């Protein structure tokens, strides 16, 4: 899927703004900037899981900080995406404990099943296979993160089922 030059439609709904204001209220009135990470998560979740420069500027405006203060944070933290990603991004933990329990073979399987290389998005925009570092699920390896949730103790069979569930829209990505 071609992902360059995609314009992101910005839509800060009333519900989203209510949540943002709730998050801002967790910090002293003169420390609005502290809400940046939690706010970025909420905004990203509501915008197909990525943050365009325009959207980052919008966040800067809401928090009354400079755009650079948002960019430098977005580019530092791996969970913030600066490019469009697949609807279902399978983030496989590939650190030692998961590698020990077969995640490398499983990722190869996932890529070949979906017909993509690591990082690529399928042509329908639905799936993506990504390798990430330790997710804190070492005892339940191999595993992956999908949206807000972990799918653990995976096998080829359970991964197949997960793909079918995604296609059937049975998977909840975010708990809102």
């Amino acid at each position, binding site marked *: 899927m071609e992902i360059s030059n995609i314009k992101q439609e910005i839509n800060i709904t009333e519900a989203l703004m209510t949540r943002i204001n709730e998050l801002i209220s967790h910090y*002293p009135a003169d420390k609005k*900037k*502290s809400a940046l*990470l939690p706010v970025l998560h909420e905004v990203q979740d509501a915008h197909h899981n990525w943050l365009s420069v325009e959207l980052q500027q919008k966040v800067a405006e809401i928090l009354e900080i400079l755009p650079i203060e948002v960019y430098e944070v977005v580019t530092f*933290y791996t*969970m913030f995406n600066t490019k469009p990603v697949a609807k279902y991004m399978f983030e496989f933990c590939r650190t*030692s404990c998961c590698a*020990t329990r077969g995640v490398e073979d499983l990722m190869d399987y996932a890529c070949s099943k979906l017909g993509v290389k690591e990082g690529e998005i399928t042509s329908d925009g639905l799936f993506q296979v990504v390798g990430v570092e330790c997710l804190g699920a*070492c*005892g339940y390896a191999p595993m992956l993160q999908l949206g807000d949730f972990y799918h653990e103790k995976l096998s080829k069979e359970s991964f197949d089922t997960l793909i079918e569930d995604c296609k059937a829209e049975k998977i909840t990505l975010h708990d809102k």
Partner: protein
Amino acid sequence: MGKKILLDKINIPGIKTYEVYRENGGYKSVEKALTMQPDDITEEVKASGLRGRGGAGFPMGMKWSFIDKKSGKPRHLVCNADESEPGTFKDRYLMEHIPHLLIEGMITSSFALGANLSYIYIRGEYMWIYKILEKAIKEAYASGWLGKNIKGSGYDLDLYVHVGAGAYICGEETALIESLEGKRGNPRIKPPFPAISGLWANPTVVNNVESIAAVPWIVMNSGAEYAKIGLERSTGTKLISASGHIKNPGVYEIEMGITVEEFMNSDEYCGGMMDDRPLKALVPGGSSVPILPAHLIYKTAAGTDRLMTYESLSDGGFVSGSMLGSGGFIVYNDTTCIVRNTWNFSRFYHHESCGQCTPCREGTGWLEKILWRIENGQGREEDIDLLWNIQSKIEGNTICPLGDAASWPVAAAIRHFREEFDYHVRFPEKIKDRNHFVNEPFSKVQHLISKQTV
């Protein structure tokens, strides 16, 4: 069965909810604490000997006693729930299954420190647990355990969860504070320490989830009682995250002082090796600590039993010992390639280096690249000494301990498994398949390396 004080109620149905938690003695430590002098609570924690459970093992009561109460600035308690050390998944277990225990500990501890605004900083990937904690905090507010004038004591406390976004470095306390201020997670130069100038330049204490969760028990039963659990300076119980090639991976609460052999083989804990294959190596305290070869796991170099304590696991220093660290207990059998595993750890540290200090930013990348080429059959004889040289120049030369954490696993792997590195360099054709030791364990080919001279 060993003594349990953190997970003793974990199997009670519904313990995740406020009502069930409260019915089972929950929040009693807050009631008791509110009748005590704050400094007396700190004294109890000091007497308990509880050492910080995040990995460093610094005495918690002493850390509390450093907080600046004289300046009159607002004080904060921040719970470090940014659990990211590979091999560690204990805090997650506790927060997911008994969230009110952490909240109770936060209230009791905040009262001791005189903090009126406290935070739990949770890693971004634990998004569903973030929601669990938010819900539990709402329940605690609704029942009067948080907010203004808690239970008529005149003490006010606001508690919130703050969510990170995928940066291991934010587990370092000053990076965590930066992140909580809405910035990149770059560690600060110390001093000043957070106890003097932390969150928004206010006096701040940062403690691990497991440490804070132990405070209610200490308040209810006294520090002296806590100190009776465990062995010598390793007081209390410890949550161990067990993973790798074992029968029963999972989170276990152990009384400190049991033997490594018991922990590994007892059915109560790891249950022995998966598929009954031979034990090859152990990382006892998360990826940063030195890896131990089989002959140094159950016994120290001096021949005494290796115990699950801070002291015993570090017996022998880095020459023949390791560290308890965060309790991330990773077990490797004979199919594991130590070179590949070390490369894997180095990739992790390279990815997670914040980039502030040159030795770490550049050095971790060099380690990763050189290990990759050795693992992929392009290694050179001199690479092994080069790795040693690089790691020794990162260690101790960075603002925060991530540099050390990146160096130690490489140093220990070379120290104990040098022959395996040599094998990779000399027999590149035999390691082409990444599962080379799954197909043919190193023990089967080791003779090739001992026969040959350079």
